[in-house]
């Protein structure tokens, strides 16, 4: 038995040494990044491989937007899924490594504020009210519904929200509180949105925020809150419900944002990556709704394709997120690296 083991061990060692990086003949497109963008990219990868009949292989990982950008700026992956624009530190890393990239918006992601279906006192809320509930100063002070608005019941307010590693958390805090990652800490936090859905659906005095798709799949268990955007919103004092139309025309403000893929310029030189990106942009309008996200207007995809054609590199955000940016405006800007 031992002789066998020794033989096996030397075999393994020998093999791993003689195995320098074995290259498969079939080209592989490597994608990684945000788990929010994952369902869209997975669908595209599936369709693309079927369309190419196995001539190209696509792999998709979920290291998160931050983890993905680390790999992207090291040149380890071809395409990066991002639920927010590239940040200053990541731009720096890419610049140092000489990685130039194309920033391509591919869909909208909206966050829905939800309450229990038996909740009778809430139909809409203003951003100011949401801020009063969620800002760090509310911790330990705003404990009852009536603390936010005296017309609401004197009952304990139970909050459910995304965990601090999630892109939804970053965006919600930025849009509502005004500063990314700035939130009260005494709420039920979960990285798993299904947990939040269960929580809110079982608690009459609960309020939570989840990605729009999780509300749409659980319409019977949740009630969605219309949002009054305030001065900066396109419809200032009107309550707007989230949905494909209001997200697409920008009236659902400020809780919707574009999500992106970033493609390295070097990878773009490879025929299979270029094919994949064009395939992605051509199919998005049809496939994005199938995986429960809101697509960009059809014209916007044409504009994005134009960017690919002209090889417009760089980000239009300058290293930070922006609230309520319209896609047309975004496409007109000039990128920087």
């Amino acid at each position, binding site marked *: 038995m031992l002789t066998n083991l020794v033989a096996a061990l030397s075999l393994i060692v020998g093999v791993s040494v003689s195995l320098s990086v074995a290259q498969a003949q079939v080209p592989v497109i490597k994608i990684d990044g945000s788990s929010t963008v*994952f369902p869209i990219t997975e669908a595209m990868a599936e369709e693309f491989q079927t369309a190419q009949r196995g001539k190209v292989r696509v792999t998709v990982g979920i290291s998160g937007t931050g983890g993905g950008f680390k790999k992207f700026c090291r040149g380890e992956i071809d395409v990066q899924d991002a639920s927010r624009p590239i940040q200053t530190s990541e731009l720096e890393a890419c610049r140092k490594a000489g990685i130039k990239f194309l920033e391509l918006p591919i869909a909208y992601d909206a966050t829905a504020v939800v309450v229990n279906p038996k909740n009778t006192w809430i139909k809409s809320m203003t951003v100011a009210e949401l801020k009063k509930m969620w800002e760090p100063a509310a911790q330990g002070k705003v404990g009852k519904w009536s603390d936010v608005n005296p017309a609401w019941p004197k009952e304990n307010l139970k909050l459910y929200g995304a965990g601090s590693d999630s892109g939804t958390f970053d965006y919600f805090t930025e849009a509502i509180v005004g500063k990314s990652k700035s939130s009260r800490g005494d709420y039920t936090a979960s990285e798993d*949105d299904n947990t939040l859905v269960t929580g809110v659906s079982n608690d009459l005095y609960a309020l939570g925020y989840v990605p729009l798709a999780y509300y749409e799949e659980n319409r019977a268990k949740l009630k969605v809150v219309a949002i009054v955007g305030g001065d900066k919103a396109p419809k200032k004092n009107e309550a707007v419900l989230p949905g494909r139309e209001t997200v697409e025309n920008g009236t659902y403000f400020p809780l919707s944002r574009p999500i992106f893929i970033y493609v390295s310029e070097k990878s773009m030189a490879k025929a299979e990556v270029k094919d994949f990106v064009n395939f992605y942009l051509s199919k998005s309008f049809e496939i994005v709704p199938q995986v429960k996200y809101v697509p960009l207007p059809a014209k916007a995809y044409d504009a994005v394709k134009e960017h690919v054609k002209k090889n417009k590199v760089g980000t239009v955000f300058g290293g930070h997120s922006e609230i309520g940016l319209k896609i047309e405006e975004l496409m007109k800007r000039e990128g920087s690296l």
Partner: protein
Amino acid sequence: MEAHQDLLANIKRRQMWDFVFALMGLLALLFALVTLLALIVDLAITGVPRINAEFFVNFPSRFAEKAGILSAWVGSFCIMITTAFCAIPLGVAAGVYLEEYSKKNWISQLIELNIINLAGIPSITYGLMALGLFVYKLKLGQSILTAGLTLGLLVLPIIIVTTREAIRAIPNTIREASYAMGASKWQTVRYHILPYSSGGILTGVIISLSRAIGETAPLITIGALTFIAFLPTPPVDGQFPYLNFKWLMDPFTVMPIQMFNWLSRPQPEFHVNAAATGVVLLLMTLIMNGGAIYLRSRFRKKMKW
């Protein structure tokens, strides 16, 4: 008479405490058992109807009813083989050395303490270490080999500890008898210690592999994928020498990652897929543990001293 009464009362009181303790033990056992059973039954009710042949031969898909776990179970299988190949020889050899060869002094005690500590380190730490060492330093990439080595390191302490325990169970008289017949130390280990302890060692190996098969965190850290719709290179091909190890360098995903991803989707149909994957994973672990129990009882029967 007084004394007799006292004695009876005393016995009664002790019997009552006996009963109370037995009841407490039973309740504790039932609590664990019922919770586990409820979980398994719930998982099975949701998952079992989804399991069919296609579920095992399909790749992941955005359509829940078409999605399968082919890449996931093949990935898990390949990684288990790699892990076993790395961890078993190292772990058993280390265990034999510590028990039979090393001097018993403060250094060996320090090593022993460290091995026991290693067994309790959170698995994500191994993932971070592997990312630095295997992926970036040794440039093994995000491959099956890296994953196998990582999980190998993770279970190594368990194998060492169980090997030592199995060897320790062998009575010293066996060793003395062997030496009395003129056998060398190596011959004693080769023909007596290892065969007699192999039941216990195998049990440890299989239990450690069933731990490894459920690991997610270290694999995500080293860069396991979530969507992959092709299989590793087949190990057998038409060209001389008909055997290759290219699959070791291929990207992969594993069942717990696939399960986790499906569970976090909004669509309830994907949750059913996750439950089905859970059932398959549970069955695989059960079969492995069953194997361990069978092997142990077989080796016990063969041994008589």
